[in-house]
């Protein structure tokens, strides 16, 4: 075999590797789904349940929202798994990370407050901090630069919430949900669709 043929082989390997770069499982719709679920639950919990003066309504709203979000996530993942043409290592790592953070959100947002580990008023701050960490790691993993911005929005929002009086704490969290989760989710979804069209 001459050097020219070896060079052609190397070029072929490089070409094939570059073709796999853009293949990551669609994540935008999961971001948007959970963004809307949490935003709806937060609005309902903050205004409807608190005005009724019955804390159990707030708990029921959050548990219902988590159940609905989990059900739709499971249905989307099942459909994607059957339809997907390629699975990358990042998809597997991202999947495990999503599951791990989901458990962390459940513990921090529902289980620990219910056990009295910390008061309910700290839930948005703790879960917001976890959301920022999740977005930061996701940004590093997939090299999506705009998600770094989303992570910092969440961390700044939790800091603002911690400094504000209790009755105003929800506002920075709503801001973070819209600008740090739902809008990046739609941007991601648009980017994925564009990537598929360009292929």
């Amino acid at each position, binding site marked *: *075999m001459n*050097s020219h043929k*070896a060079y052609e*082989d*190397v070029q*072929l390997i490089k070409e*094939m590797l570059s073709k796999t770069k853009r293949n990551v499982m669609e994540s935008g719709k999961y971001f948007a789904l959970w963004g809307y679920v949490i935003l709806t639950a937060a609005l309902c919990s903050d205004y409807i349940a608190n005005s009724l003066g019955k804390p159990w309504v707030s708990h029921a709203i959050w548990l219902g929202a988590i159940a609905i979000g989990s059900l739709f996530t499971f249905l989307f993942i099942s459909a994607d798994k059957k339809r997907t043409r390629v*699975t990358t290592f990042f998809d597997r790592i991202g999947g495990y990370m999503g599951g791990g953070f989901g458990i962390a959100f459940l513990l921090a947002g529902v289980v620990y407050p219910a056990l009295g580990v910390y008061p309910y008023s700290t839930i948005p701050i703790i879960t917001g901090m976890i959301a920022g960490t999740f977005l930061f790691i996701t940004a590093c993993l997939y090299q999506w630069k705009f998600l770094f911005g989303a992570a910092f929005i969440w961390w700044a929002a939790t800091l603002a919430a911690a400094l504000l009086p209790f009755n105003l704490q929800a506002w920075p969290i709503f801001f973070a949900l819209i600008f740090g989760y739902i809008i990046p989710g739609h941007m991601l979804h648009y980017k994925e669709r564009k990537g598929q069209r360009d292929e």
Partner: protein
Amino acid sequence: MNKESVHLDPLIHTPVRLAVLSLLMAVEEADFMYLKEKTGATEGNLSTHLARLEEGGLISIEKTFFKKRPKTVCSITEEGKRRFHHYVSCLEALLSPEIPEENTSEG
């Protein structure tokens, strides 16, 4: 490894099989249509090459159904990874410049 001793794996040393292994090295698993699209091979040609790679133990093939249509999913085996790495080492050896004898004995 010098150029004279380089022995390229004949099971990998065809453009389609090398392309398939390169793709599978970068992903966890890929279906038949994805490999066909990326390699530019015809269905019959790709099927033949995939069968050869599977016989050689370099890839594993799982056949399932999606919406009543057959779906073939391929992934590289540990043996496939090992032989691919060796193949790349051979290519590197072939492409590396010859080092004069007097320089290699220094130091």
